[in-house]
């Protein structure tokens, strides 16, 4: 009886066990048939370790192929914590070599992870020292580091990249997609300790190297602009300043500089604000530099002609307000061109009122004052202008001479370019072309005139008026002997937080050259100069200094008389090359010119302006002299290379039959043997180049 019960219960246990086996069987069917593929893939995915292969970030070149930013390979150290045999010792050694804290290293070496960065982008020497320690679980990988070889040159425009080679600002950001390339990867199947498995699965996807940018910027012009800007900011103890040089025919930016600045190689040492591209992000009251736009609207609509006359008695009543000119006694009766030369506010108020609100706003739109220019840099803003439906006659009157409205510097230079190029809008741009890693051009950016906004006639009349500003008017200090320049001064009250800042001024000069065939448009603004603050006093000399060197660099031939100058005031520069310095001085004095000797020799070897140029009386002619020794047969005098770029220096030496041994980059600062030394043909001249922006 009891044995029967026991048997029954054993049978029940067996049934229960069998049921459990059926469940487990079903579970195994599910895992190994239904779920198998997913689990298998996930498992393989887990075992596959991706080793990313970073593409090389593209190079940024200036228009002549000079490198402005490139990437070099540097080493980064990492740890695979599971493979670190002795974390304490490893941390102690790394702490010693890298100068990092022992605790933070210990934390990384003992973390439950398969990969930890120790330190990225370290010098080769440091990497070598760590490698010699032969530490287990510590590895190295090549990473690329961005280098800006010219330091702060063009810094804001070039921008910066982050530790992971992401472009963060400037062109590095704007063209990040092209510059960066596409990451490749090497994949390998590893065990849980990170070692490659026997017969492991492997995969390789090659990286696509980054594309290169060829800019419209000319390194030499950029250098000249920055040098002169630095000098001006220093001279006038200004808060800062900016300058833009552009080809008015195409919209190609040749140089763009702003102060204060920074060095992208160590950008964390400078205030963040120094990195802003204020030439495109910030708007400023343009002051009188806006007047050419008012004038263009007036001439183009026919509401004013160049033959009209304007009377300035020192003030004018607009509605209930009385607006004053900057000359209290007034400019008297003036022609249209004289209004421009005198920068007469009363005259421009009359011109503006004649244009009327409707047409004034139409031309603001046409000149691009109400929209962004479309420049290929990040963060562009458009100006601040009283909305048309709120505009009253008093607003129109004040805007006519450039107050209350605000424009970005790039808007301003784009609008002046329309006058320079015969009436067309242009889109300012800094990238000329994109090339691939092999140097093949993959994209050429659009450039050139876009559409006509004023007639050829109006443009010509304005060019003449602006040329007279330099030859006779407020812009005299911008005059470059031998060249025809056109331009406009400007002085405006600084606007801080939407309010006029008393006693703080912006000194402007905007113009182009040569006036009859503009090759370059240039805008200069000095922010808060101490002491003198008029554009004609502060900005015009900067314009003059830049134009002088740039025109020479661009090999623009000197021209005859500037338009509007009194022919009696002009003299022809005599040919002085080959003559003694003393006799050259006498020669110059005869024609009321001043000679200035430069160089150690006694005989003139070059001169500037060159012979035949027509210049104003009193102009300084620079007489270059070299060591006064005559080279013998098979010998040659070493030319002076100081201030030249690498290419220029090489060409110069080649002409002379000498060989260049260059050191560094930038502009020649030192040479051995010195200029004037007589050496045998084929001698090597050592030249040290340095990118010392400023002094």
């Amino acid at each position, binding site marked *: 009886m009891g044995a029967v019960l026991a048997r029954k219960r*054993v*049978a029940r*246990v*067996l049934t229960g066990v069998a049921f459990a086996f059926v469940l487990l069987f079903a579970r195994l069917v599910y895992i190994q*048939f239904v779920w198998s593929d997913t*689990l298998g893939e996930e*498992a393989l995915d887990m075992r596959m370790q991706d080793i990313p292969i970073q593409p090389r970030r593209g190079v940024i070149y200036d228009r002549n192929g000079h490198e402005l930013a490139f990437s070099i390979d540097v080493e980064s150290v990492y740890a695979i914590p599971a493979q670190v045999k002795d974390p304490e010792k490893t941390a102690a050694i790394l702490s010693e070599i890298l100068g990092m804290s022992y605790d933070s290293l210990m934390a990384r070496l003992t973390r439950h992870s398969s990969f930890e960065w120790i330190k990225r982008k370290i010098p080769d020497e440091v990497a070598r020292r760590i490698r010699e320690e032969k530490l287990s679980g510590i590895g190295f990988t090549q990473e690329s580091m961005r280098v800006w070889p010219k330091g702060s040159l063009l810094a804001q425009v070039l921008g910066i990249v982050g530790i992971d080679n992401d472009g963060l600002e400037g062109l590095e950001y704007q063209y990040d997609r092209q510059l960066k390339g596409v990451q490749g990867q090497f994949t390998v199947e590893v065990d849980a300790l990170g070692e490659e498995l026997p017969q492991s699965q492997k995969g390789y996807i090659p990286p696509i190297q980054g594309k290169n940018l060829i800019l419209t910027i000319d390194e030499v012009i950029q250098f000249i602009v920055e040098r002169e800007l630095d000098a001006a900011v220093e001279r006038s103890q200004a808060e800062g300043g900016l300058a833009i040089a552009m080809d008015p025919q195409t919209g190609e930016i040749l140089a763009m500089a702003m102060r204060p600045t920074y060095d992208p190689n160590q950008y964390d040492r400078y205030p963040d604000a120094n990195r802003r591209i204020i030439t495109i992000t910030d708007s400023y009251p343009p002051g009188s530099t806006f007047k050419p736009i008012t004038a263009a609207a007036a001439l183009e609509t026919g509401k004013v002609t160049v033959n009209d006359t304007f009377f300035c008695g020192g003030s004018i009543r607009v509605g209930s307000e009385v607006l004053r000119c900057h000359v209290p006694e007034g400019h008297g009766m003036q022609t249209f061109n004289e209004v421009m030369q005198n920068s007469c506010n009363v005259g421009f108020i009359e011109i503006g009122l004649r244009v009327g609100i409707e047409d004034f706003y139409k031309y603001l739109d046409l000149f691009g004052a109400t929209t962004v220019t479309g420049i290929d840099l990040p963060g562009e803003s458009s100006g601040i202008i009283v909305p048309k439906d709120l505009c009253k006659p008093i607003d129109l009157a004040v805007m006519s001479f450039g107050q209350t409205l605000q424009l970005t510097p790039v808007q301003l230079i784009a609008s002046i370019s329309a006058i320079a190029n015969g009436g067309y809008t242009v889109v300012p741009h800094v990238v000329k072309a994109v090339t691939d890693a092999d140097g093949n051009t993959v994209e050429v950016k659009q450039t050139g005139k876009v559409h006509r906004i004023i007639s050829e006639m109006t443009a010509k009349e304005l060019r003449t008026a602006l040329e007279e500003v330099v030859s006779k008017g407020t812009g005299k200090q911008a005059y470059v002997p031998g060249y025809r320049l056109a331009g406009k001064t400007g002085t405006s009250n600084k606007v801080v937080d939407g309010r006029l800042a008393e006693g703080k001024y912006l000194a402007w000069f905007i113009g182009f050259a040569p006036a009859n065939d503009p090759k370059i448009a240039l805008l200069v603004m000095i922010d808060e100069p101490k002491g003198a603050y008029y554009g004609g006093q502060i900005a015009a000399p900067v314009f003059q200094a830049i134009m002088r060197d740039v025109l020479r660099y661009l090999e623009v031939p000197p021209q005859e008389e500037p338009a509007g100058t009194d022919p009696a005031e002009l003299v022809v520069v005599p040919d002085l090359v080959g003559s003694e310095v003393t006799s050259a001085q006498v020669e110059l004095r005869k024609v009321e010119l001043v000679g200035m000797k430069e160089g150690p020799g006694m005989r003139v070897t070059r001169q500037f302006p060159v012979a035949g140029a027509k210049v104003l009386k009193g102009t300084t002619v620079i007489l270059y002299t070299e060591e006064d020794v005559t080279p013998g047969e098979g010998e040659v005098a070493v030319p002076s290379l100081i201030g030249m770029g690498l290419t220029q220096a090489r060409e110069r030496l080649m002409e002379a039959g000498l060989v260049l041994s260059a050191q560094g980059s930038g502009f020649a600062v030192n040479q051995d043997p010195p200029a004037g030394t007589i050496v045998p043909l084929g001698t090597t001249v050592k030249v040290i180049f340095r990118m010392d922006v400023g002094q």
Partner: protein
Amino acid sequence: MRTARSSRRARRGSPDYILFFAVMTLMAIGITMVFSASMVRSIKFYGHPYYYLITQLVWAGLGMSAMLFLMHYDVWRYRRWIPLITGIGLVLLVIVLIPGIGQVRNDARRWLGFGQLVFQPAEVAKVTTLLFLADSMARRRDKLGDLIKGLGPYLVFLGLTCGLVLMEPDLGTAVAIAGGAAVVIFVAGVKWYHILLVGAASVPALVWAIFSEEYRRKRFLAFLDPWADPEGAGWQIIQALYALGTGGPFGTGIGDARQKWFYLPEPDTDFIFAVLGEEMGFFGTSLVLALFMVVAWRGFRTAMAAPDRFSCYLAAGLTSLIVLQAIINIGVVTGSLPITGIPLPFISRGGSALVINFIAVGIILNISRYANR
């Protein structure tokens, strides 16, 4: 007594060869898998792949000798020594807890012995406990109807045994002992509602046991959703599922498992079934499952045909001991049960556990020779 013995002698037949061959097949698969699964670690720690294979072969030889001996040496001949054997088992459980005597591995004090020759008293207790219960309950059958006087002492004894094992700690073995004991108590004819009562009373204890210990709580919760913490508590289950899934229907081939390369924890012991599933696929896992089903069938069949209550209870308990361990181990590896730390009998690498399992089978085989036909 003498006559009973001689009459049994006369009826002695051949052992259950089906059970015998099922166990030997499991052992053969086990040796193969132990070699494959331990190779990686053996090379890492000992420089050659055979270290764990050799120790496993030594223990298997020992275990098989014990099985063959017990198959011939009738269980009734040492029945009167059972209280003494049980006592020794309990004493060993106490001794192993003494620091300095019991050896510690992986934070658990479970081992006694010297050098290579170590064993777990908890493994010994598995068999001694079932021997005691089967013997005592068969003799005190008429008193089992009383909850306090009948069942009470056994519950106290079980509580003591399992408590000592838990102190090592060794949850897996405690569970195995309790499971085998429960089957003996059930088969011995304890009233249904008494079983339910004890069962209901032990639920709070079980909950407490799980949630009082941080790592057990994590393991339990990880079993419910391993992907909630794939790098931590869920890691083991996920790696096991990866291995089984990678194996699919036919496996990657013996020796070619990927997951045993330090992804699977304990690939040669608690998680050997995952390596087997990866290398031999569903073919291998279902074969092992079928072999354990054969063990269950022949073991319980032996219990049902046993000549007396003592041997019936004992065969049922010992069969359950093996089969329950298999069910729990495979349940854990397939993510169907929370992790308990129970090895797979005859397959997992292990010393005293393997010998004890062979001893259990040896006793069952001995009983099978006296089956009522």
